[in-house]
C-alpha cells in the first residue's frame, strides 16, 4: 500500500477507533469531557491526515482502488469492500473531517450545559457519524456506499432526536428517517437492478460496462433514476425536502455538520461519484436540472417568511443543494462539486454563528433578537461573512461557484431553469440579509441579555469564516485537481454581473423592509398576499403528505395488518393448535412407568419375530 492509500485508510480508521473505544469503554463515555477530547483527537488526526493526503494528491494525482474480499462463498466472494481514493474523494475527505473537527470543537462550548453522560453520548454519535461519512466518501462500490448511506441516516436520526424528551425532536427524527427511507427504497432497488444485470457492485466495473454500452439503455435509465430517488431523499430535494426544516430540532452544531455541510451533500456527492453513468442517461440529467432548479426556487421562497433563524438556514441549504443538482443536470459536475465544497464551509459557518446567537439569546425566533451586533461582534461579523458568501457577493466563495453553475446552465440552453435559478439568487440575498438585519441590526430588544460566546466557540467560526473568504479562489485549482492537465477555460459572460446585481438588489430589498422598516405599498401587498399565505402553509406540501399518509398509507397498512393477523397468523395458529391437540391426545400413552414401556418393547419384538418367521 502506498502512502496515499495509507493516509486515506487512517483518515477513516481513526474515528472508527474512537467510536469503538467510546462504545466499549463505557465509563469513559459516561465521563463526558474525556470522551469529547478523545473524539476531537481522532477527528483532528483525520483532518491532518486528509489535508496531507490532499496536498500529495494535488501534486501527484492518483486513482487507487483497493478491494478486499467480503462474504466469501464457494463461487468466489459475493461482495468486496474497499475504497477508491482519487482527487474527488480526497477533497471530500478534507471537507468532512475539517467541518466535523470545527463542529466538534465548537460543541464543547455549545453543549457545555449537558450532563456528563449526555455529552459522552453526543460525542459517540459524532464519532460514529464521522466514521460513516468518511466511509461513504471512500466507498468504491454500491453495496458499501449503501451501508454507509444508511449509517449516516441512523446518525442523523440519533442526533436530530438527541433531546429525545422533547416531543417535537422525537417527531422530527422519525420524520427525517421516514422521508429519507422513502428515497432509499429507490436507491436500493436501483442498486439491485444494476447488480442483477452486471453482477458487480464495483463503480469502475460498472462504468466500464456503461461506456461499452453493454447495459441496455432502458434498464440503465430506470436504475439511475431510482438511484436519484435516494440522492433526492438524502439531499432534501423536492418532493423529499420536507424533512430538513424539521430536522432543525436537533442541536445546532449537528445541523451545521449533518444537515448543512456533509450528510445532505451526500446525495450530490453520490451523483458526482456516479457521473460516468449519469452523463450517458439524458433523462436522468433532465430530471436533475428541473428538480434541482425548481427545488432551489421553492426552498428559497419558503426561506423568506420563516421566523426561526435555523429554519431560514435549513431552507437555504435545500435551495443551495438544488443549485448543485441543477448543475449536475447540465453536466457541470465540477461546478457542482465546487459549490458543494464552498457551501460546506460557509453554511456550516452560518449554522455555527446562528448557534452562537441561540446560545446567547436562548431563542430561535429572529423577531426576539435585534441589534446583537453590538454585543456579539465576532458572531455578527462571521455571520455577515457567511451571508455574503451565500448571497454570492464577490470576493466570497459563493460568488465563484454559483456563477460557474449559472454560466453552465446558461450555456446548456435551458432557459426555464436559468430563470428559476436567477430568481433564487435574488431571493437568497433577500432572505439571508433579512435574517441579518432582524437579528444583528435593527431596534434593540430590551429583554435580551446577550453576551459573546466563549473562545472555544468563536475560534472554529473564525477559521470557517476565513475559509469561506478564500475557498472561492481555488476554482481553477479545482478543475485542475479533478481534471489533471486541463486548464479551466475562461468563458466571458455577462451572467456574473447579472447575478451580482440581483444579489445586490436582494440585499437592498431586505435593507429597505427590515432595516429601514419601510412598509410595503398597499398594491404590492395585495398582490403578494396569496403567495405569502401559500408560503406560510409551506405550499400545503406537508399537509398533502400527511393526508396521503393518513388515508392511503394507513388504510393500506390496516389491510395488510388484517391479512397478517387473520390469514397468515391464522394458518400458523391452526397448525399450532392441531399439534397441541395431537400431543394431548397421545399423552395418555406415555405413562412414565418403565414397565409399560417394556411391555411395548416385548410385544413389538414378538410381533417382529412372528413376522420374521412368517416371511421365511
Amino acid at each position, binding site marked *: 500500500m502506498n502512502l496515499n492509500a495509507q493516509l486515506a485508510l487512517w483518515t477513516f480508521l481513526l474515528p472508527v477507533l474512537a467510536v469503538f473505544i467510546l462504545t466499549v469503554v463505557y465509563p469513559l463515555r459516561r465521563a463526558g469531557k474525556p470522551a469529547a477530547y478523545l473524539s476531537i483527537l481522532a477527528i483532528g488526526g483525520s483532518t491532518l491526515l486528509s489535508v496531507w493526503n490532499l496536498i500529495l494528491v494535488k501534486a501527484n494525482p492518483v486513482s487507487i482502488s483497493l478491494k478486499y474480499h467480503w462474504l466469501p462463498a464457494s463461487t468466489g466472494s459475493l461482495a468486496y469492500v474497499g475504497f477508491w481514493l482519487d482527487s474527488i474523494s480526497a477533497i471530500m475527505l478534507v471537507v468532512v473531517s475539517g467541518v466535523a473537527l470545527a463542529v466538534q470543537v465548537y460543541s464543547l462550548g455549545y453543549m457545555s450545559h449537558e450532563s456528563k453522560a449526555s455529552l459522552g453520548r453526543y460525542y459517540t454519535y459524532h464519532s460514529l457519524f464521522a466514521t460513516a461519512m468518511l466511509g461513504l466518501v471512500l466507498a468504491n462500490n454500491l453495496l458499501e456506499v449503501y451501508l454507509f448511506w444508511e449509517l449516516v441516516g441512523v446518525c442523523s436520526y440519533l442526533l436530530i432526536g438527541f433531546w429525545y424528551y422533547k416531543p417535537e425532536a422525537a417527531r422530527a427524527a422519525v420524520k427525517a428517517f421516514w422521508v429519507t427511507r422513502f428515497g432509499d427504497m429507490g436507491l436500493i432497488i436501483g442498486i439491485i437492478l444494476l447488480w442483477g444485470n452486471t453482477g458487480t457492485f464495483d463503480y469502475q466495473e460498472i462504468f466500464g460496462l456503461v461506456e461499452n454500452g453493454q447495459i441496455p439503455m432502458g434498464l440503465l435509465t430506470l436504475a439511475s433514476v431510482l438511484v436519484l430517488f435516494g440522492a433526492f431523499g438524502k439531499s432534501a430535494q423536492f418532493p423529499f425536502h420536507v424533512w430538513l426544516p424539521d430536522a432543525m430540532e436537533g442541536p445546532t452544531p449537528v445541523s451545521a455538520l449533518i444537515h448543512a455541510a456533509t450528510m445532505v451533500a451526500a446525495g450530490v456527492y453520490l451523483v458526482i461519484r456516479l457521473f460516468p453513468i449519469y452523463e450517458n442517461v439524458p433523462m436522468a440529467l433532465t430530471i436533475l436540472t428541473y428538480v434541482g432548479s425548481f427545488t432551489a426556487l421553492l426552498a428559497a421562497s419558503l426561506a423568506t417568511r420563516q421566523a426561526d433563524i435555523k429554519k431560514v438556514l435549513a431552507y437555504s441549504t435545500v435551495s443551495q443543494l438544488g443549485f448543485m443538482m441543477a448543475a449536475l443536470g447540465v453536466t457541470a459536475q465540477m461546478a457542482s462539486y465546487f459549490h458543494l465544497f464552498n457551501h460546506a464551509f460557509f453554511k456550516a459557518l452560518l449554522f455555527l454563528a446562528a448557534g452562537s446567537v441561540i446560545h446567547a439569546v436562548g431563542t430561535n425566533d429572529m423577531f426576539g433578537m435585534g441589534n446583537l451586533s453590538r454585543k456579539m461582534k465576532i458572531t455578527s461579523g462571521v455571520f455577515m461573512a457567511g451571508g455574503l458568501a451565500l448571497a454570492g457577493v464577490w470576493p466570497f466563495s459563493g460568488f465563484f461557484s454559483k456563477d460557474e453553475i449559472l454560466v453552465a446552465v446558461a450555456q446548456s440552453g435551458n432557459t426555464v431553469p436559468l430563470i428559476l435559478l436567477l430568481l433564487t439568487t435574488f431571493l437568497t440575498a433577500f432572505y439571508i440579509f433579512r435574517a441579518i438585519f432582524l437579528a444583528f441590526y435593527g431596534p434593540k430588544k430590551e429583554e435580551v441579555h446577550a453576551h459573546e460566546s466563549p473562545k472555544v466557540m468563536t475560534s472554529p467560526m473564525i477559521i470557517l469564516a476565513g475559509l469561506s473568504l478564500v475557498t472561492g479562489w481555488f476554482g481553477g485549482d479545482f478543475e485542475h485537481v479533478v481534471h489533471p492537465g486541463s486548464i479551466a477555460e475562461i468563458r466571458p459572460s455577462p451572467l456574473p454581473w447579472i447575478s451580482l446585481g440581483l444579489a445586490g438588489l436582494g440585499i437592498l430589498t431586505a435593507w429597505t423592509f427590515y432595516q429601514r422598516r419601510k412598509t410595503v405599498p398597499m398594491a404590492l401587498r395585495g398582490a403578494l398576499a396569496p403567495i405569502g399565505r401559500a408560503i406560510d402553509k409551506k405550499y400545503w406540501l406537508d399537509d398533502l403528505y400527511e393526508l396521503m399518509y393518513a388515508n392511503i398509507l394507513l388504510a393500506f397498512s390496516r389491510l395488510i395488518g388484517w391479512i397478517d393477523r387473520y390469514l397468515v397468523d391464522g394458518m400458523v395458529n391452526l397448525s399450532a393448535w392441531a399439534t397441541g391437540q395431537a400431543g394431548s391426545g397421545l*399423552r395418555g400413552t*406415555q*405413562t*412414565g*412407568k*418403565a*414397565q409399560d414401556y*417394556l*411391555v411395548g418393547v*416385548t410385544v413389538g419384538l414378538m410381533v417382529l419375530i412372528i413376522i420374521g418367521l412368517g416371511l421365511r
Partner: protein
Amino acid sequence: MSNYLILSALVFGIGIFTVITRRNAIGILLGIELLLNAVNINLIAFAFMRDNAVGMVFVLFTIAITVAEVALGLAIVILIFRLKKTVQADEVNLLRG
C-alpha cells in the same frame, strides 16, 4: 442341544414375565437377573456345541457385569425409596412428561 435352548427360552420368558408384572422393584431386578442368565445359558450352549471357548469367556464377563449392574440397580432403588417412600414400580412415573 435343543433342550438347552428350550431351557434358556423358558428362563427368558419367566424373566420377562417377572419384569413386566412384578410391582416391587426388587422383584424386577431379580427378573432382570433371570434374563441375563437365560442369555448365559444360550452362550454356554452354543460355545459347547461349536467347541469354541470364546462364548464361555463371554459368560464370565456377563456375570461380572451383572454383579455391577445389580449393585447399580439396588442403589437406584434405594434412591427412589428415599424420594418416593416406596419401591412399587407403578407408583414411580418420573418419566411422565
